[in-house]
């Protein structure tokens, strides 16, 4: 399995706005609506950033 080091490195290499949504949703356990309020962006933007963050992580961890 990927070590936390691998995951952390991949996480840190995400674009800042993608990392920010994962911080809100995964680590702070916020919903899309809550994250949107916290980040000051539309909910659809949050969803899109989550999607692209997860795709980026998958690609990075599959390298």
């Amino acid at each position, binding site marked *: 399995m990927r070590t936390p080091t691998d*995951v952390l490195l991949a996480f840190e290499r995400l674009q800042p706005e993608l990392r920010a949504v994962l911080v809100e949703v995964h680590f702070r356990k916020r919903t899309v609506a809550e994250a949107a309020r916290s*980040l000051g962006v539309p909910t659809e933007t949050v969803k899109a950033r989550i999607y692209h963050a*997860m795709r980026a992580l998958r690609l990075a961890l599959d390298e």
Partner: protein
Amino acid sequence: MTEEEFRISIGAYLLDALEPAEALQVQTHLVDCAECRKEYLELTEVLPALATLPRDPAPEELPRPEGETPDSGTPEGDLGLRRALRQVVAEQPPPRRRRWRRRWRPVWLAVAAAVVVLTAVATGMSVLSEKSSSLPTVRTVTGTNAVTGARLTGTLRPDGTGAGSRIQAELTGGPPGMHCHLQARATSGSDGPQRAGEQVQITDRGRATWANGTVSIPVDRIDRLEVVDGSGHVMVQAQP
């Protein structure tokens, strides 16, 4: 929602960040849309990796750096998180990237192949046949605890040998914070239950998932899946 909106929502769905009504919409869509199911399966692979990172202490408990704006998303804005993550990393042995790749890539690919749709919201879907004839039959099990409302859905797929099964399951409506694990029981009744998934903690929104459970019971001999709490009590079971 449009097709594109559904696809974009899959990540948030997997992270349990959608409102219940919206999550149900996505679940229902996944039953019908092969493209989105493919996307779902691919993104599911990220979950075990994210699970290796700490969720507690919550970074929100750590103060934001002065001057940070809520939407900064800057590395500085993640200082608290990074501090917590680095602490975990410091406790790990040095990375052996090439080694884990050799060791885990086959497992990872097997998991990807085994992961199937968790969207058996439609009752009566006891057996699903994959549209692709090259894929083995998948059995879907569902069940609800009438008292607590906890609901368990699972998919069972033959492993590479045919002697065992790969299992993916999802609990919803469970008690937040409680630890539980997944187990499977065979139809014969002579064998005890087999643990099919690691112990997990139910999320604040009452959800728990097992993406890569395995048991040495063939798919056609699995009678039911059960979610068991730390005291050994069956919280909910799911049958075809």
